[in-house]
């Protein structure tokens, strides 16, 4: 399959700061079209079939309409740029190379839902982006793409940059909103959803960087054009991040439906040094780990979940034959244990227990009952945690037990052997 750049179109060819350069490649034309017929924006987005690119894959048009249909004196657009998933760097690249496309997407969304204030919640661990975004925002404001009376339309919409405080959980939209309000970043119970009661209780559209960056092209070229790309249920492209034991790690934009094998072999160039591929973690740190036998799975939300893989934010981490899967799992669960906000019982107390159990397998002291307890706990967390962090944290373990049972050796004699 051929690379196709929608989100990253012209990225790297033009200055990320200067709006004039973005305009020279057709930038802000989508916004101009949107302000002429604001009522059509949501219709277009719905028809395009665009789904959120942050990991959950929720239909973007529907999300827009929730915010649009909630009457309020104030509404907000929030760009979720808290890209904290280990092995995910796609939003970073979009922000580094073509930030105006994000601003344009936010402004289109603002026009559609009736918001006049936007925030970009930027991951604190991307400090170099602060300067780029601030300068680009200043330039956009100077040229009236944001600020009062954008593109002479009568609409007001400004964007403020907000730097996060270093918590992975703030990538969860409601925790992000709490953090933005100056509180401890913890997910809220939903409902109410942010679209109805979000930032400071006002209707708020929260979307991922990549999702927002898709809007200008859809408005400009129309939903039919967009639907030609990708798969039926998941139209469009995806910006994938390839990492781990692979020759050409990096960020690549391909139509949705590209297979993992294509990305591994053709794009990534296989494992370095001729090593054999042992496993692939799909979708991100909280995604499923699958064996090479599933490499022909297309990267598409439905196909992934049918086959036991995870689409997530489009990450693929390749693990070669020299790696110990238990080390990988230990490292991942350490991450979730560290990043759990501590609000809900299963995530706060469950992750450390998963970690303790994985370590038992590592040091050979695990019994059959430990394996059973680990699966039981993992399933309780998947079904019972308050937010996606806790719900997804056991995925790597649960999928590894399914696809790599040989790794989980139990020693039922251990108890007798121990004093």
């Amino acid at each position, binding site marked *: 399959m051929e690379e196709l750049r929608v989100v990253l179109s012209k990225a790297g060819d033009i200055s990320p700061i200067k709006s004039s350069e973005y305009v020279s490649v057709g930038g802000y034309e989508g916004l101009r079209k949107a302000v002429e017929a604001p009522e059509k924006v949501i219709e277009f987005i719905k028809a395009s079939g665009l789904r959120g690119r942050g990991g959950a894959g929720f239909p973007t048009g529907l999300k827009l309409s929730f915010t649009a249909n909630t009457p309020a004196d104030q509404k907000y657009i929030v760009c979720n740029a808290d890209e904290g998933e280990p092995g995910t760097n796609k939003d970073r690249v979009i922000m580094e190379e073509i930030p105006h496309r994000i601003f344009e997407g936010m402004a289109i969304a603002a026009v559609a839902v009736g918001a006049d204030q936007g925030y970009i919640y930027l991951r604190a661990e991307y400090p170099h982006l602060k300067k780029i975004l601030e300068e680009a925002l200043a330039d956009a404001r100077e040229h009236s793409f944001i600020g009062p009376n954008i593109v002479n339309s009568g609409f007001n919409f400004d964007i403020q940059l907000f730097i996060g405080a270093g918590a992975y959980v703030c990538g969860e939209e409601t925790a992000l909103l709490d953090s933005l309000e100056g509180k401890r970043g913890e997910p*809220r119970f939903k409902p109410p959803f942010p679209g109805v009661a979000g930032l400071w209780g006002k209707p708020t559209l929260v979307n991922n960087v990549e999702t927002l960056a898709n809007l200008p092209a859809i408005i400009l070229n129309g939903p039919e054009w967009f639907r030609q790309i990708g798969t039926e249920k998941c139209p469009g492209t995806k910006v994938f991040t390839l990492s781990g034991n692979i020759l050409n790690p990096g960020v690549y934009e391909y139509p949705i439906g590209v297979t993992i094998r294509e990305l591994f072999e053709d794009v990534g160039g296989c494992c370095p040094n001729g090593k054999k591929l042992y496993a692939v973690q799909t979708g991100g740190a909280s995604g499923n780990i699958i064996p090479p036998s599933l490499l022909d799975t297309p990267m598409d939300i439905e196909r992934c979940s049918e086959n036991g893989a995870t689409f997530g934010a489009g990450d693929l981490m390749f693990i070669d034959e020299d790696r110990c899967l238990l080390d990988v799992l230990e490292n991942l669960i350490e991450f979730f244990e560290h990043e759990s906000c501590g609000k*809900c019982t299963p995530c706060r107390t469950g992750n450390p227990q998963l970690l303790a159990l994985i370590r038992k397998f590592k040091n050979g002291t695990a019994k059959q009952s430990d394996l059973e307890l680990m699966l039981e706990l993992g399933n309780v967390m998947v*079904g*019972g945690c308050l937010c996606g962090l806790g719900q997804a944290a056991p995925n790597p373990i649960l999928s590894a037990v399914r696809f790599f049972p040989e790794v989980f050796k139990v020693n039922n004699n251990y108890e007798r052997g121990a004093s």
Partner: protein
Amino acid sequence: MYKVVIDGQPSEVTNGTTILAACEQLGIEIPTLCYLKHLTPEGSCRICVVEVKGARHLQIACATPCTDGMEITTMNERIYAFRHMIIELLLANHHADCFNCSANGSCKLYQYAMDYDVEQTRFEEVTKFRPKDESSEFFNYDPSKCILCRRCVRTCNQLQSNHTLSLKNRGVATWVGLPFDKLFKDSNCVSCGNCVSVCPTGALTTKASKKYRSWEVTKTRTTCPYCGVGCQMDLLVKNGKIVGVEPADGPANSNLLCVKGKFAYRFINHPDRLKTPLVRKNGVLTSTSWDEALDYVAEGIKRIKAESGPDAIAGFASARATNEDNYVFMKMMRAAIGTNNVDHCARL
């Protein structure tokens, strides 16, 4: 109105009713730890899960609103196993020192462990406990008993709005503490004790509660005797003595009290209470019988009234006594003595 079916029983609820409230209407009990009336439900403890037909995962009852046609199951094997697991997880981070615990008998974790047959947790203890804070004059804080239901934090911040307690750290290292790790006595704590009243375990306990067990006390609903707010509360009585006070959900106080209502009850049992009438004899107040004292009063009043008229007698009633006491006092002054010289400290 929405139609819902709970455990096969059809019911009607108003729009916005939570599953928990709908269950309460039918008298179905759901275990809760973080839920508290008057606080926004935050759904953090996860013990109140129920099964909703059509939903992939179990749903928490305390925060999930009913929808029309919702079919809810409040107990089955899946729910039981889930709650069992939550209790096991909590117990793994709880210093189960039940024998010595002030909350013995009133601990919700203990109760649910019993209800769900959790004799022992299968998990290892993973939390490092923080030291106790017994610096308050009125209550003790033992973080090793805390299950992080956050009722205290939310009560302190949302209801009392004093912002003394907050959550510190995150993940399994989360704990309830004070700004700059201060002790209660050095903080802005106003000793209202509302955090203590809402604690479901023995993490926050009154200093007095070491001396009684919940099954030993009887409760009497009454009105706080201090200021004019009229807070409703329960007096806890053991062996004829007040040993504690718990807030009640009165129209004026909605389960809140202040330091005086919650803790200033010791005067009731104080040895200095007057126990017999006293009459001054040779300049000294001396114990006497009611008959003698009452005769002394009545004779004195009669004599002065006869000599100087009823207006030579005055009476101060009490803003501390009941309506009935004050009425009889006022009636005594006006009807039995015959003067309007009756006042009380309304102005003071």
